[in-house]
């Protein structure tokens, strides 16, 4: 009944998951960033009593609402896909995700349903202070939801705090706090939220610049640029700091991902960080002796510093990780891929023996098998790997995506700083090139965020759960054709919905905030 898994099934299932995740991630970060910007604007209104700021906040809230409606529930499809396409994986991890996702559902529902309603409906019905608190709690609720999802993702990259139970074939939570507060989870949460702030700020500054290019809504646009650009610059700095933290975590927990991010085949002490470079397309295998780069500019010693906080530290490359034999930080010698694969096979055999012995109610054999399973479980996933080179993620995609994210991050920081400086000096209005750049930066910021996910997810292939379960074992035994059908149905349906929804967004932008100076004066008096 069980056929071997076809690689095209894996590719289509991954493509489908990626498409859904990309779509979902178009809207979530804007919500995270815009939510703060509008709350800051309302806070200014609360402090100054100037109705202009109320109107300004209200306009961005309208776009927040549209964006929220477009993005809402798109994440649910990812959960459907877990159950359909990745059912082995879902079963295997069930208990770990049960708690975070349940908390996420409840918190998100109650916080968002209550506070979003007050934010939109409550302007003249509740006190100014209560309204402002609701606006802040709306974004706090959305951010808490993001936290739990990112905890789940972080666990797949670094499966801490769990215990595998061979009776249920599931991982069970051994320590909630090790799962929720693992260093990977915390870093990922902060980096992802700050990157959302960048995208939200670029959205605000970009749309405000569009009004200036059209010579409309000038006071509103300049005020929005001021708030958006300062917040954006702050978010860029925080992203760089947490991105550095993420890279450090990757070096500790996923050295193969780090090596792919850097196109590093041969490791060394005092390794340099590739600033820019062109990979050699002729390099097809880690051991083909070809050069990895056609050309590159390196920042000396920086990779070692990034990875280990030590300019002279050893950073292993792809070949080293596959061949093993180097001394690790804890003094132990790294296993080769072949050794890990052998231990993985032992773990899987131990699972088979355990289940057989348990069925036969043979206690001593059960115990023996359990001990063998526990001793080798950290390499369980390697038992599915046929060829060491299957352990290498797509290097060029990971390498270029990492550069795109970091370079765009740097450019956005520069842009926000210039925009903030010029807008406070009242010189932003005349700079059309800058306004165009700000408008384009919306797409650059979105691209940087998507590239970040490419680094995180493509860079960890072939693992669904790092070292424990590769995608080839995680996937359900479906027909490739059925996955292709759902891929295209999803693509068609959501493109139609997206177009409809974007039209609403563009119409709202074209209409503008409609802040009439004479009405403002009346309201302020």
């Amino acid at each position: 009944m069980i056929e071997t898994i076809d690689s095209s099934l894996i590719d289509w299932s991954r493509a489908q998951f990626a498409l859904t995740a990309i779509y979902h991630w178009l809207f979530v970060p804007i919500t995270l960033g815009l939510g703060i910007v509008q709350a800051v604007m309302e806070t200014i209104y609360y402090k100054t009593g100037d109705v202009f700021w109320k109107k300004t906040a209200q306009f961005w809230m309208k776009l927040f609402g549209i964006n929220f409606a477009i993005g809402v529930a798109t994440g649910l499809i990812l959960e459907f896909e877990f159950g359909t396409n990745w059912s082995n994986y879902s079963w295997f991890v069930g208990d770990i995700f049960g708690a975070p996702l349940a908390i996420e559902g409840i918190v998100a529902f109650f916080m968002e349903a209550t506070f979003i309603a007050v934010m939109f409906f409550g302007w003249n019905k509740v006190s100014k202070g209560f309204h402002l608190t609701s606006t802040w709690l709306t974004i706090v609720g959305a951010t808490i939801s993001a936290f739990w999802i990112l905890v789940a993702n972080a666990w797949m990259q670094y499966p801490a705090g769990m215990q595998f139970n061979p009776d249920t074939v599931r991982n069970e939570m051994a320590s909630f706090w090790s799962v929720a507060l693992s260093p990977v989870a915390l870093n990922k949460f902060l980096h992802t939220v700050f990157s959302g702030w960048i995208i939200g700020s670029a959205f605000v500054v970009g749309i405000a610049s569009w009004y200036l290019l059209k010579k409309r809504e000038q006071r509103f646009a300049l005020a929005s640029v001021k708030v958006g650009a300062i917040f954006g610059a702050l978010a860029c700095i925080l992203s760089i700091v947490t991105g550095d933290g993420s890279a450090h975590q990757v070096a500790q927990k996923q050295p193969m991902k780090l090596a792919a991010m850097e196109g590093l085949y041969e490791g060394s002490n005092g390794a340099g960080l590739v600033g820019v470079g062109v990979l050699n397309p002729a390099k097809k295998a880690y051991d083909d002796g070809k050069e990895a780069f056609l050309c590159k500019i390196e920042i000396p010693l920086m990779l070692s510093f990034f990875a280990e906080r030590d300019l002279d530290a050893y950073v292993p490359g792809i070949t080293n990780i596959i061949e093993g034999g180097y001394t690790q930080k804890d003094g132990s010698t790294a296993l080769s891929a072949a050794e890990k694969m052998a231990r993985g096979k032992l773990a899987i055999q131990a699972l088979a023996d355990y289940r057989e012995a348990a069925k036969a109610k043979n206690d001593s054999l059960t115990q023996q098998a359990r001990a063998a399973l526990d001793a080798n479980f950290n390499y369980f996933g390697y038992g599915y790997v046929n060829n060491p080179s299957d352990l290498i993620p797509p290097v060029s995609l990971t390498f270029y995506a990492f550069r795109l994210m970091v370079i765009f991050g740097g450019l956005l920081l520069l842009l926000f700083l210039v925009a903030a400086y010029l807008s406070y000096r009242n010189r932003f209005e005349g700079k059309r090139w800058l306004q165009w750049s700000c408008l384009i930066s919306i797409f650059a910021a979105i691209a940087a965020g998507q590239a970040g996910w490419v680094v995180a997810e493509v860079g960890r292939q072939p693992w669904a759960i790092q070292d424990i379960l590769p995608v080839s074992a995680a996937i359900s035994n479906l027909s490739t054709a059925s996955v292709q059908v759902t891929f295209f149905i999803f693509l068609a349906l959501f493109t139609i919905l997206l177009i409809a929804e974007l039209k609403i967004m563009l119409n709202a932008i074209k209409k503008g905030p409609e802040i009439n100076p004479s009405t403002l004066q009346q309201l302020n008096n």
Partner: protein
Amino acid sequence: MEKASIPVRIFRFYWEGFRSMTIGKTLWLIILIKLFIMFFVLKVFFFPNYLGRFDEPSEKQDYVSEELIRRATDN
């Protein structure tokens, strides 16, 4: 005028809020269409729970463990 009870005031708050929406009405329509498509079309016809064909957790455990063991040995 006498003050209404809290549940009534909350109900009115939502009711009046929804009634006075402009863009929001279209957005709600889109959200409802989207949820309908997701739960009554995609989930039912295209994304059934793969392990849903087994009734008992023990059957699911057996199936997943067999798959996990076979896939390693089939290699």
